[in-house]
């Protein structure tokens, strides 16, 4: 069943240009130039119930704006959206009881009170009956391992602990759809891993539909089979994570351990040398000549060990977004990215707001 349907979604923000300095401020009191920022442009996608989809893209690409429209926080400029059959910006309680949004940079818990109090308040807001509430809370607290923190003031918790509590607060009413905007931002590696494991497990066992945005590629790699890549408000890729590498990268990574030093110019004959430390060398080798090159390496060089790997998804994304906006679509000189991303118009008027 389709859980989320988005067709031709657009969101344009207008804002005022202000010249720098006091003079600019005075001028802007009387006369302002209105500028438009197209945060989301003609975005369409469909997500099935139970899917866990990743939104990827640089800051200001439109990820958060899209999530806010799906949550009913923002009105779109145009387009059709239904989530679980509801139009989000009508803000119907029937819809609001069925979804949750967690924003890594915002806090919905009561700052001066223990998390337990915020949970109890959510119980009353969502009208969860006591028995069910106790059971769900018990389960979530156990999985997260934060039983000992329930009675500690929220402001005294670490960021990781707080995010766990934020997630619990968002899940008490058992939402069918969950939007996670940077849920691991600012967390240490261990906390990130815990949150990831939790989301993965929760999606699998509860069949909750999840959209996740993250800057951390590990989040996406671990959790999402499908990704939507957004750039300048447009979707430039919608598909499997594995295919992303195939489509945007035409080389693999060959790592060699050599018996003795080999001159650089000899190595360069086999592929682009991306890393070299002592006797360990990393080469980027075009996929089409991979077998041939591997054979040639083994016969021509004193190779002790050789391994072939896919390019890390992180580098794929870096390749996709590596160019400045103005450079997009031009002849691509970055090694390895023989297939440039689709042409993206660079007529946007502002960067950063998202």
């Amino acid at each position, binding site marked *: 069943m389709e859980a989320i349907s988005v067709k031709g979604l657009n969101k344009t923000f207008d804002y005022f240009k202000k010249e720098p300095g006091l003079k600019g401020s005075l001028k802007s009191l009387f006369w302002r130039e209105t500028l438009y920022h197209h945060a989301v442009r003609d975005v369409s996608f469909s997500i099935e119930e139970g899917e866990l989809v990743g939104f990827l893209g640089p800051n200001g690409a439109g990820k*958060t704006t899209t999530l806010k429209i799906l*949550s009913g926080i923002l009105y779109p400029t145009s387009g059709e959206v239904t989530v679980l059959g509801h139009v989000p910006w009508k803000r119907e*309680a029937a819809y609001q009881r069925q979804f949750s949004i967690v924003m890594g940079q915002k806090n919905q818990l009561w700052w001066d*009170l223990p998390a337990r109090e915020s949970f109890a308040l959510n119980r009353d*807001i969502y009208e969860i009956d006591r028995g069910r509430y106790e059971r769900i809370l018990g389960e979530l607290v156990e999985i997260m391992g934060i039983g000992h923190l329930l009675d500690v003031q929220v402001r005294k918790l670490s960021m990781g602990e707080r995010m766990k509590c934020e997630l619990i607060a968002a899940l008490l009413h058992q939402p069918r759809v969950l939007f996670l905007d*940077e849920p691991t931002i600012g967390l240490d590696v261990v906390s990130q891993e815990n949150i990831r494991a939790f989301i993965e497990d929760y999606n699998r066992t509860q069949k909750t539909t999840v959209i996740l945005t993250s800057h951390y590629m590990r989040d996406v790699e671990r959790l999402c089979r499908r990704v939507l890549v957004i750039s300048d408000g447009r979707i430039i890729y919608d598909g499997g994570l594995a295919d992303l590498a195939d489509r945007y990268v035409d080389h693999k990574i060959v790592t060699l351990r050599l018996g003795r030093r080999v001159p650089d110019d000899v190595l360069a004959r086999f592929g682009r040398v991306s890393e070299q430390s002592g006797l360990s060398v990393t080469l980027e080798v075009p996929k089409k000549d991979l077998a041939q090159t591997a054979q040639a390496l083994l016969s021509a060089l004193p190779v002790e060990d050789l391994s072939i790997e896919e390019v890390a998804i992180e580098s794929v994304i870096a390749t996709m977004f590596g160019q400045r906006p103005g450079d997009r679509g031009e002849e691509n000189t970055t090694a390895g990215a023989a297939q440039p991303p689709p042409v993206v118009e660079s007529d946007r008027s502002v960067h*950063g707001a998202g």
Partner: protein
Amino acid sequence: MKRSGISAVCAVRRTFRLYGSFLAQNLKNEMVYRANFVLLVGMDLFFMGINVAFFAILYANVTTIGGWTFHQTLILVGSVGLVREAAYLLFRQGFLELGDYVRTGQFDALLVKPIRPNIHLGFRHVSLTESLGEGLMGLALVGYGFAHVGTGWAAIPLYVLMLGVSLVIYYAFCLAINSAVFWIIKSQELNSIVYTFMETARYPRDIYRGLGKAIFTFVIPISLIATVPASVLAGRLDWGLIALAVIVAVGMMSGATVLWNWSLRHYSSASS
């Protein structure tokens, strides 16, 4: 028709229950800061004292102002205190915080919950202490005045009802003014407008003449807020005035709700 009536009753009951939860939450929150509590109550008592002294000096020279005697005026001043305290218990503090919510994008969280954002906002900032002193002092003044004007006990239910109507007018006024927050992002100035007008509520409506009277009745109906309930208790019952207050309350509330809902569409959220 009947079904919608029942569901409306359920919604009201549910809102009251929810208010109870929020109130408890806020009390716990306020008790974290004890010194603040004492300071606020003390300040309120001080300012109410100044008000009473002001009228005491006036009435040392005249016997009535706009037809109101000293004891009737005490009921009026006390009623303003009661309305203000009730407002702080229900919604006022929330509106004071609204600008911060909008500027930081914290308002997002209110928009996704199955409870109206304006009600949620008020409940989230229930403040017992903010005007507790004013409320207690108000109660004392109303009691003292009532004991001297010699109106019967029978006036009390209507008085309480009209306090409720005044509260609706006050709420509608706050809601309408604060609808502008989604454009100007700061709520401090907006709420000082509300505050300034509320200051004028403690004078009897009868002191205004002509255009001033019309403005303070229909455009900014603050003059009704204290005058109407106070007239009931002060033995100056005027059914025409009561009908006027009810009509103004219903009209303003409808208008303010439409304006607020329309303004919500313009909330642009802070980027995060």
